[in-house]
């Protein structure tokens, strides 16, 4: 398993993600600058949290137009694993790799706290370490985590089983309490909560660990 973390100007959970991945993979995880254009050789690409381009205009909008995005799309198209967390999720929706958009939290405030998530299915590369229906604790830390789609898309993603996680208690107004979604093929996951922040009991929990362990031990077909 070869993994990398993409770094945009003002990404700020890049190191946290690298640390969490390396903890599971036990080998170095590369940091890839947004001006690069090639991601061949990576099995897992992670777009981390942060405030790429200051979250100006729309969260993730400017990063979604960075040079690296073409390579990220290519990686996803060939079936590579792609994970977007928080700002990374926003980038992937802006790039239309994932459906929907992330709008301002309904209370218009930045929200940083632990929330409970329900794992919707455990037959994907990302969630095989959890049980379907399992409740896990993960922190959210965002200003724009309010997931929204039009009715048609919502019907489609619900019907396809593309919802990955739901909030037990909706903190931000997300439609159907959606906290994370897959693409149709299931090789791309975006979620607002930060699993990389809970991989260390010293920091208050390890509910994020199974995701990274599962990803990095994933032996299914990745890439082509």
């Amino acid at each position, binding site marked *: 398993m070869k993994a990398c973390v993409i770094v945009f*100007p*003002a990404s*700020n*959970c890049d*190191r*946290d993600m690298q*640390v*969490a991945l390396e903890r599971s993979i036990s080998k170095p995880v590369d940091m890839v600058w947004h001006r690069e254009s090639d991601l061949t050789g990576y099995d897992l690409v992670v777009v981390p*949290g*942060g*405030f790429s*381009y*200051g*979250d*100006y205009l729309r969260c993730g909008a400017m990063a979604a137009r960075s040079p690296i995005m073409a390579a990220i799309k290519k990686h996803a198209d060939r079936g590579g694993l792609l994970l977007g967390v928080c700002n990374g999720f926003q980038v992937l929706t802006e790039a239309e790799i994932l459906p929907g958009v992330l709008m301002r939290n309904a209370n218009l*405030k*930045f*929200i*940083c*706290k632990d929330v409970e998530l329900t794992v919707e299915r455990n037959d994907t590369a990302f969630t095989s370490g959890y049980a379907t229906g399992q409740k896990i604790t993960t*922190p959210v*830390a965002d*200003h724009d985590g309010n997931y929204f789609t039009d009715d048609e898309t919502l019907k489609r993603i619900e019907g396809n089983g593309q919802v990955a996680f739901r909030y037990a208690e909706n903190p931000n107004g997300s439609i159907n309490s959606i906290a994370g979604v897959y693409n149709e093929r299931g090789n791309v996951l975006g979620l607002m909560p*930060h699993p*990389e*922040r809970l991989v*260390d009991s*010293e*920091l*208050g929990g390890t509910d994020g660990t199974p995701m990274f362990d599962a990803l990095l031990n994933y032996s299914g077909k990745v890439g082509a």
Partner: protein
Amino acid sequence: MSETPNKITAEIVAEHGLSEEEYQLVLEIMGREPNITELGIFSVMWSEHCSYKSSKKWLKTLPTEAPWVICGPGENAGIIDIGDGQAAIFKMESHNHPSYIEPYQGAATGVGGIMRDVFTMGARPIANLNALRFGRPDHPKTRHLVHGVVEGIGGYGNCMGVPTVGGECEFDKSYDGNILVNAMTVGLASTDKIFYSAAAGIGYPVVYVGSKTGRDGIHGATMASTEFTEATEDKRPTVQVGDPFTEKLLLEACLELMATDAIVAIQDMGAAGLTSSSFEMASNGGVGIDMNLDAVPQREENMTAYEMMLSESQERMLMVLHPGKEDMAREIFEKWELDFAIIGKLTEPDESGTGHMVLFHKGEKIADLPIDPLAAASPEYDRPWVPTPARETLKPSEVKAPDNLMAALKTMLGGANGSSRRWIWEQYDHMVMADTVQRPGGDAAVVRVHGTKKALAMSSDVTPRYVFADPVMGGRQAVAESWRNLTATGARPLAITDNMNFGNPQRPEIMGQFVGACEGIADACIALDFPVVSGNVSLYNETNGTGILPTPTIGGVGLLDDVSKTVGVGFGGEGQAIVIIGETAGHLGQSQYLMEIIGRDGLSADDGAPPNVDLALERKNGDFVRAEIISGAASACHDISSGGLLVALAEMAMASNMGATIEDLSGASTPIHAWAFGEDQARYIVTTSDPEEMLERAEKSGVYATLAGTVEGQELTIGTAHSISVAELKDVHENWMPDFMSHPEAH
């Protein structure tokens, strides 16, 4: 000298905030009449903010040394050694006035400024704290100010990816027209990679990096300057807008460059921007600078020299580089998409030994100022002061008991000043960087030193009503409380930064508060081996002749060698014993009980003296508690401060969702309300599964310790007569602030 369009009149001098005597000194130093640019430079360099003219004399009395202090006050931030070749760099700074004018941007740029102070020195910021003081909750502006300030702090800190892990927030009518926003940053550096501001190397390039310069924040001097710009459009706001995105890039670019050996000296552009940064670098290094203002990256057209020198545009830095490193440095800044410009070079001092600041603009030499005389002659006042009259100690019997003890507790925990600050810290990313071991809500935050098992504990404290009643005792108490809060996590307190917020120093009673607080802080720092390594002074915090409560905020930093040993404030576990360390006499003077339940305002002498702070006792009790935590004997710890014993117990109960049964230990001389709510110092509550042994060790150490009860059930019960459910307490405690803030607010 050309470009002196206007004669310097008495009005212009006054508009620049210089007194007649000060202007005479200007004439002496210059040997001629200054032009407007030069006058502007004098005015900002000699402003209270930059020169500390009222406070210098007293700040010098603060203890600043300890074996672990690498750099005390004088640089951008203080530095302490935390072992293994690592240093903690920290400072606190106020942005009070700007935050009142424009709360979001004022607070945001305050956070940006303090972070720059820390990363200028080579440290990566790892935590932010903020100490906030607002007016009374029902003042029409309060809600709007709280909203804006909290959002601004979050907006900047969250984007930077630096966790905001702690602080304070209080409401009092003395801040109605003058809120306090004190921001603190703690950074981490290698001891062999610390950067200072002293310029060196004649001929070496002076480099400007970061954002472009605009006409932001050209303060009171704006009026004078408008005469010289063609711009006659709407009066320019003096508010600066922060750009945390650019600051994040600046941080990364600076740290990347600092990893090389290109930098000789570096200084952020804070207050008085280009002026103070360039003068500081030159005067610390004993050199001069030739500066070409045409090369300064400019955001607006037709900027004058005056405007460029006085602009307070944010997110900018000045550096001196080793010759030959310019291209490499430029590449780094361009990679991060930031401006980079060589704007000058260092020059030799003149025959008299002083360097000169020589400014060129549009091909002409437009200013020439001798640096040392300007810095050395900066005024220092010994302002008249009177000591604050001593108050009598209030006896418990003089203070009415509540009708119902638990109802009083509920009122205190559910009031403006006793309620939870969750509404605030949930708007701050307090976990980013994934090293926050103790989140906000306890005594001190604990943040791991990345990649090690060490951790830093940090806290910000002061009890202004104590300082008002007795500045010396209040000063001591602020330091002692900070020390206690660090101790309560198991950390060894190492050093403090202070932020002295006071009223008008030209009034002797205010100056007396300042002098007294300095004395108290100094006493405590010496007794607790807890020196001052950095700080900031904010004076003239008053409206219509009424000063704020004197508020010397203390930001303390401590070290845990092994973070796994830390404990929190939540009870350690069902069935454990509750032990009170320190003696409870029931001091109610200036207490929260007196304010919230009896309804006093603390301003009159019959509200009593604040609690006595016995520094030797603080040390003895604190050292004992810390040892109990580190040995693993204590499973939880909370210091007892505002609100006293019962409030502290309730906070421990709420933090763990566990109840407790406590023996009623009140007595004839300490009636139950004094026992429950008295604010005697040097006290802690701990839980343990082996109380006998702990009490034995306490006795051996000469520490007063009492077995007070047991963690059990879902209620907090005192003796046989008083009981309340923890859920009920939590409900009022958690809801005050969200309820208060949910009302619609206008500006």
